[in-house]
């Protein structure tokens, strides 16, 4: 199920295979020279983020508008020992901000151990064989992490809000910007009007706070999808120095990457994408059911006490559906990307939302 050795947030399956030396452990901090060396394999260059792999290091250039404070808090969380079995930890950068963040040409840059991402073509061939249960368990354990517990590491007390609202607004802003360049007669404007109407049907709190009014917030990833699941190489796991025995024999090494949106919020946001895939008809019911069952079996709290999972999931899943539809139209307007079946599925859902479904 796994293939290219990568760590990125999107389009990850296009990276090359692991070289024989790529699992060599690294010791010491990353230097600025290592961060800025030319070449490397571009893993992601989309929506203002750049992820490049150099051997066993992955260098991530964050969004231009990213603030160093919240990003540093998120990187510290990713390196928190209590989350070591869940999140891929960042590498330390010599002389960097908080030892984790460098500034290169005015942009914030972080460094990560290379890890093995899921391959879209393999998920395509056997969607049910993707590590749905392992991913559900990681999310459930993330959501039940108590960051107020004694022994919290420095920085853990300043958990930022998950960036889910900003992501929603950004998708609509990008669409509006892209549409400005499309002639008025283009049919895309009618589809965009549907997406805008669907957006206006969303409960207002979705765009204002990462958590439902009155609900207890949890630690959430904020941008979970299959591209965020990797298998860590043994040496990239903290505590596993070269030659050290595995600390957990049952640990298959699955980790979640990309903490740019990590923070407190409604854990339903982390199940919103699978929920939207299922609603749009991309995910078979048995895969969706298996994912939810594994999440609940691992103690996941996102669904609340009732028996209907949509009571909790509906709002975030609607929001994600609007984002997917807006993203497809933006790519069509900006790059001429055809509206394929996947895009149509979410545009159809957005149309039903706009019609009051």
């Amino acid at each position, binding site marked *: 199920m796994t293939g290219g050795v990568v760590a990125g*947030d*999107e*389009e*990850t*399956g296009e990276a090359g295979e692991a070289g024989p030396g790529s699992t060599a452990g690294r010791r010491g901090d990353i230097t600025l020279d290592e961060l800025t060396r030319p070449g490397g394999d571009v893993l992601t260059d989309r*929506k203002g983020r750049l992820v490049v792999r150099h051997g066993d290091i992955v260098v991530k250039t964050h969004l231009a508008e990213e603030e160093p404070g919240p990003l540093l808090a998120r990187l510290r969380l990713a390196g928190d020992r209590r989350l070591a079995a869940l999140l891929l930890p960042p590498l330390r950068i010599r002389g960097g901000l908080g030892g984790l963040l460098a500034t290169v040409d005015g942009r914030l840059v972080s460094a990560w151990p290379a890890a093995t991402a*899921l391959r*879209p*073509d393999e*998920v*395509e*061939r*056997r*969607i*049910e064989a993707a590590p749905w249960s392992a991913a559900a368990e990681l999310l459930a354990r993330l959501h039940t992490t108590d960051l107020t517990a004694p022994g919290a590491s420095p920085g853990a007390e300043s958990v930022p809000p998950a960036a889910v609202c900003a*992501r929603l607004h950004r998708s609509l802003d990008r669409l509006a910007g892209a549409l400005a360049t499309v002639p008025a007669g283009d049919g895309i404007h009618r589809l965009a009007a549907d997406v805008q109407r669907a957006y206006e049907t969303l409960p207002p709190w979705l765009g204002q706070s990462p958590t439902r009014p009155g609900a207890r917030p949890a630690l959430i990833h904020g*941008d979970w*999808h*299959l*591209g965020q699941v990797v298998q860590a190489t043994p040496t990239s796991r903290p505590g596993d120095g070269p030659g050290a025995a595995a600390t957990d024999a049952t640990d298959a090494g699955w980790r979640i990457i990309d903490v740019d949106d990590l923070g407190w919020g409604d854990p339903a946001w982390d199940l919103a*994408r699978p929920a939207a*895939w*299922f*609603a*749009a*008809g*991309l*995910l*078979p*019911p048995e*895969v*969706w*059911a298996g994912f*939810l069952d594994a999440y609940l079996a691992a103690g996941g709290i996102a669904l609340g006490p009732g*028996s*209907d*999972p*949509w009571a909790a999931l*509906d709002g975030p*899943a*609607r929001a994600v*559906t609007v*984002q*997917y539809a807006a*993203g497809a139209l933006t790519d069509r307007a900006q790059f001429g990307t055809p509206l*394929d*079946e*996947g895009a*149509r*599925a*979410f545009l*159809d*859902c957005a149309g*039903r*939302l706009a019609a009051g*479904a």
Partner: protein
Amino acid sequence: MPSWTAPGGWPREPDPALIARYAATVSYQTMVCPKCHGAMRTYNRNGVQIEQCDNCRGIFLDYGELEALTRLEGQWAQAAPPPPPPPPPGGHYNQPAWGSHGHGPSHGHGYGHGHGRLTRMLFSS
């Protein structure tokens, strides 16, 4: 000459006389619309034969056919509504009201075959 020709000469050559007789039968059955003189065609509606004009879409009913249709209508109104489909096992199998409900992109194709761009959606924000 194919060796599988059946006794009695089947398949046989077209018989012009037979074709002429068939054509006569068809033309006998074709009514002319009393209103616009267009050709009328016979349809079967729940066992009732009705003639409809291909031109003006007008309908001609023979004696008793209107009564037959009225009777059918009454039976339809009295029939009990069909039972609702049984709920799927386990609440989380349900899609929300705004879902695809079987009309999604994977419907009829099976999942995970020839939908590479669909799978891509599972890997993107």
